[in-house]
C-alpha cells in the first residue's frame, strides 16, 4: 500500500515521516527541505510512505509545489495522510478541503496539539473528525506521541462509513462541474469536482492535464462563462478569490464547531527570541558571528585536532597493520605498493577530514532545524535584492556550503524562474565540504596561525563572487521579471538530538560512501597511471602517464603560480569530486599522511601560490555530480555548459590577479 504524506510547510511533516518510517530522513524547519519526493517503509513494513514537499494549496506557485500536483495527477497511490498543524488550523484546512475534493481515501494527523494548547486553542478532535467525515488522529510528531496510533490508522484497511464534508460553492460552479463531466466523457479517473475547482482556480498543471482530453478553446470557454456567471452577482474580483472565500467561510463554520480559543497566553517565546535575532541592527552581526563560530569550530577549535588525531591513527597503526598483513599473506611488491601508496594514501587522505565535515553538517542541521534559516533569508534579503535575487536564494547557498547538490535542489523553492535559474547557476560557487580538505591541507602547511581566517576568506570570496555575478547576470543575460519575496518565518524549535544526528548522518554519509567507492576506484586508477608510463611499469613518477596528462595543463597554470604537472593532474581529478584532489596529491607525492604531504608541499608552493591555488579550487568548476544536477534542474545543455565555462573563466582571472599582484608586492 502506498500512502502519500501531504501538508503545509513547517507542520512537522518530515519529523512525522521519520517517526512513522524509522528511516534516516532529512528534517528541516524551513519550507523546501523536502524538495523531492522521498519514500520510506512503515516500521511494521505494512506500507510505503511517500513524503512530498509542503504546500499551502494544490494550485502551485513554485516548482517544488508543482511536484505535489503532478504526483496527485500522475502517480498511483492508495491513500493520503494529511498532517495538519492544530495551532494554524484555519490556514491548514484550505489544503485539507482540497484533498477531500480530490477524493482519495484520507486520514488526518493533527499535529502540534501541544503548541495549540499553549496558545490557548483547544481542538475537539472527535467533533472535527465527524464534521469533516475523515478520521483524525492527534499527534505530537516531535516527541512521537500518538504516532503509533496514526501508523495503525493509516495502515488498517479503509472503511468508508462517513460522508465527507463538502464545501457549497454555489449553483454556477456545480453547473461547471457537470459541464466538465460532459466534456471529459468519463476519460479521466480523477474527481471531476476537484478538476473543475482547480481549473477555475488557475492551476496550470490541471489545465495541462485536461488539455490532453479536451480542446483548449472549450476549457477557456468554460472558465470564462463560469467566471462571468459567478462574478456577476458578487463583489469579488476573480473566480479564484470567490472559491477561496467560499472555502474560508466553510472553514469558519468548521472552526466554530470544533475549536475553543481561551484567550492569548502572552507573547510567545519565539517572538521574544526574534526581538534579538532579527533585530534591526543586530540581525546581520549576529548572523556573521554565527558563521564565524561555525568556522572556528570546524577548522580550529574542534575539527582540526580531531582530524589530526585521525590522521595519526591512519598513517600510524592502520598503515602498519595493513603492511604487516600484506607481508603475512606474502603479497607481491606490486600489490604492496598499490594498497599502501594508492588506496591507503588516496582513501585515507580523504577520510581524515570526516570529523571536520561532520561538524560542518551538524551545524548546518542545527541552523535548519531551529528555524534560523528563514531568518537568515529575511536578514539577507536587502543585500540580495540589490543584486537581483531575493533572500530565499541565500538558503540554497548556505546548504551549498555542505554540498552543492542539495543546495541546487533547494533552489526549487524560489518562485520566479529567473531567480531560480540564477541561484542554480551561482550555488556551485559556494565552497562545499568536499573543497574543505584541500583548504585544511594547505592552511595547515602555509597559514598555521590564521587557519580559520584564511578559510573564512575563501568562503566569503565565494559569496562575494556569487553576488557580483548575480548583479552582472541580472543586468545582462537574465533581465526582466520582478523579484519576489514573501517568506513564512516558522516558530523557533529546539532541535532534537535524535533528529540532528539523523540529518547530520544523512548528509555526511554521502562523503564517507564516496570515499569507499568513487575515491577508492579513482585512487587505484590514479596510482596505476602514476606507476606506469610510456617506458613500462614502475617508472619514475615524472615519466609516468599521469605526469604526461598533468603536464598538458602545466604551462596554462604557470601564470597562476602552480604550473606543475602535479597540480594539473589533481585539478583534472578534482572535476570528478573535489576531495579527489587530495587523494591525487597524496598518491603523487608518495606520502601516506597529511603531515608528510604538507612538508613536501612547502617545497613546491609558496604561501602566495598556495592561496592562488585554493582560490582556483574554490571556483574553477562544479564537480561532476553538481553538473549533472544543474542539467537536471535547468533542463538545458546551454546553461549547464555556461555554468562550467563562466566558473573556469572567473577562477582563472581571479587566481591570475592574486598571484601576479601578490608578486608585485613581493609576497
Amino acid at each position, binding site marked *: 500500500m502506498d500512502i502519500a504524506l501531504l501538508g503545509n510547510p513547517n507542520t512537522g511533516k518530515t519529523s512525522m515521516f521519520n517517526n512513522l518510517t524509522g528511516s534516516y530522513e532529512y528534517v528541516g524547519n524551513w519550507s523546501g527541505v523536502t524538495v523531492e519526493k522521498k519514500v520510506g517503509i512503515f516500521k511494521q513494513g505494512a506500507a510505503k510512505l511517500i513524503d512530498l514537499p509542503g504546500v499551502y494549496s494544490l494550485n502551485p*506557485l513554485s516548482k517544488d509545489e508543482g511536484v505535489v500536483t503532478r504526483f496527485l495527477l500522475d502517480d498511483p497511490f492508495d491513500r493520503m495522510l494529511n498532517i495538519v498543524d492544530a495551532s*494554524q488550523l484555519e*490556514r491548514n484546512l484550505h489544503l485539507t478541503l482540497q484533498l477531500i475534493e480530490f477524493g482519495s481515501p484520507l486520514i488526518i494527523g493533527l499535529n502540534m496539539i501541544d503548541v495549540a494548547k499553549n496558545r490557548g486553542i483547544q481542538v475537539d478532535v472527535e467533533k472535527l473528525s465527524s464534521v469533516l467525515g475523515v478520521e483524525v488522529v492527534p499527534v505530537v510528531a516531535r516527541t512521537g506521541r500518538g504516532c503509533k496510533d496514526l501508523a495503525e490508522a493509516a495502515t488498517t484497511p479503509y472503511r468508508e462509513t462517513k460522508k465527507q464534508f463538502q464545501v457549497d460553492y454555489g449553483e454556477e460552479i456545480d453547473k461547471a462541474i457537470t459541464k466538465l463531466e460532459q466534456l471529459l466523457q468519463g476519460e479521466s479517473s480523477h474527481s471531476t469536482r476537484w478538476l473543475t475547482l482547480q481549473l477555475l482556480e488557475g492551476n496550470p498543471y490541471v489545465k495541462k492535464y485536461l488539455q490532453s482530453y479536451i480542446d483548449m478553446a472549450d476549457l477557456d470557454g468554460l472558465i470564462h462563462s463560469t467566471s462571468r456567471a459567478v462574478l456577476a452577482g458578487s463583489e469579488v474580483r476573480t473566480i479564484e478569490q470567490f472559491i*477561496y472565500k467560499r472555502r474560508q467561510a466553510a472553514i469558519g463554520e468548521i472552526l466554530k464547531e470544533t475549536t475553543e480559543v481561551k484567550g492569548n497566553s502572552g507573547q510567545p517565546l519565539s517572538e521574544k527570541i526574534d526581538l534579538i535575532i532579527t533585530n534591526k541592527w543586530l540581525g546581520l552581526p549576529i548572523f556573521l558571528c554565527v558563521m564565524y563560530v561555525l568556522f572556528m569550530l570546524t577548522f580550529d577549535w574542534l575539527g582540526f585536532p580531531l582530524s589530526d588525531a585521525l590522521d595519526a591513527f591512519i598513517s600510524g597503526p592502520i598503515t602498519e597493520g595493513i603492511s604487516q598483513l600484506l607481508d603475512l599473506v606474502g603479497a607481491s611488491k606490486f600489490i604492496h605498493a598499490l594498497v599502501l601508496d594508492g588506496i591507503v594514501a588516496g582513501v585515507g587522505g580523504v577520510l581524515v577530514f570526516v570529523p571536520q565535515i561532520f561538524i560542518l553538517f551538524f551545524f548546518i542541521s542545527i541552523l535548519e532545524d531551529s528555524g534560523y534559516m*528563514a531568518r537568515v533569508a529575511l536578514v539577507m534579503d536587502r543585500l540580495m535584492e540589490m543584486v537581483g535575487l531575493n*533572500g530565499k536564494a541565500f538558503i540554497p547557498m548556505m546548504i551549498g556550503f555542505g554540498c552543492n547538490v542539495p543546495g541546487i535542489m533547494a533552489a526549487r523553492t524560489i518562485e520566479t524562474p529567473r531567480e531560480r535559474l540564477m541561484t542554480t547557476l551561482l550555488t556551485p560557487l559556494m565552497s562545499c565540504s568536499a573543497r574543505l580538505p584541500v583548504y585544511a591541507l594547505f592552511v595547515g602547511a602555509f597559514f598555521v596561525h590564521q587557519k580559520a581566517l584564511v578559510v573564512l576568506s575563501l568562503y566569503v570570496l565565494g559569496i562575494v563572487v556569487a553576488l557580483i555575478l548575480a548583479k552582472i547576470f541580472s543586468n545582462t543575460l537574465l533581465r526582466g521579471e520582478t523579484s519576489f*519575496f*514573501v*517568506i513564512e518565518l516558522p516558530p523557533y524549535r529546539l532541535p532534537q538530538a535524535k533528529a540532528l544526528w539523523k540529518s547530520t548522518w544523512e548528509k555526511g554519509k554521502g562523503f564517507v560512501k564516496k570515499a569507499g567507492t568513487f575515491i577508492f576506484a579513482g585512487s587505484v586508477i590514479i596510482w596505476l597511471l602514476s606507476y606506469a608510463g610510456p617506458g613500462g611499469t614502475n617508472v619514475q613518477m615524472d615519466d609516468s602517464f599521469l605526469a604526461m596528462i598533468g603536464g598538458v595543463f602545466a604551462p596554462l597554470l604557470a601564470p597562476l603560480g602552480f604550473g606543475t604537472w602535479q597540480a594539473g593532474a589533481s585539478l583534472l581529478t578534482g572535476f570528478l569530486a573535489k576531495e579527489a584532489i587530495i587523494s591525487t596529491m597524496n598518491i603523487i607525492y608518495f606520502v601516506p599522511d597529511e603531515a608528510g604531504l604538507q612538508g613536501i608541499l612547502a617545497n613546491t608552493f609558496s604561501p602566495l601560490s598556495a592561496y592562488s591555488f585554493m582560490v582556483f579550487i574554490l571556483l574553477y568548476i562544479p564537480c561532476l555530480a553538481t553538473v549533472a544536477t544543474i542539467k537536471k534542474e535547468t533542463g538545458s545543455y546551454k546553461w549547464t555548459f555556461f555554468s562550467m565555462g563562466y566558473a573556469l573563466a572567473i577562477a582563472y582571472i581571479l587566481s591570475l590577479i592574486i598571484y601576479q599582484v601578490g608578486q608585485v608586492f613581493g609576497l
Partner: protein
Amino acid sequence: MLSMLRKGEKAIITDISKADELVKRRLLDLGITEGSEVCIKCKMPFGGPFMLESCGQCVGIRKNEASCIKVEGL
C-alpha cells in the same frame, strides 16, 4: 499603507488589490488577506523587508510590497 506602520503597531488590511499577483497569492496561502489583523514586528535596515505577525504566525515581506497594501489602524 502597511509600510507606514511603526514597529509594534497593529492594523487591519483593507485593500490588497494593488500588490503583486504572486505576493497576493502567497499571502493568501498564509491566510493573510483583506480583513486580517497584522502587526509589524520588525523592520530591517536600509529599506529592507518587514516582519509581520498575523494570526499567530510571522511572515517576511518587502517594503515596496508593503507599501502597496492599504491598512486601517486599530
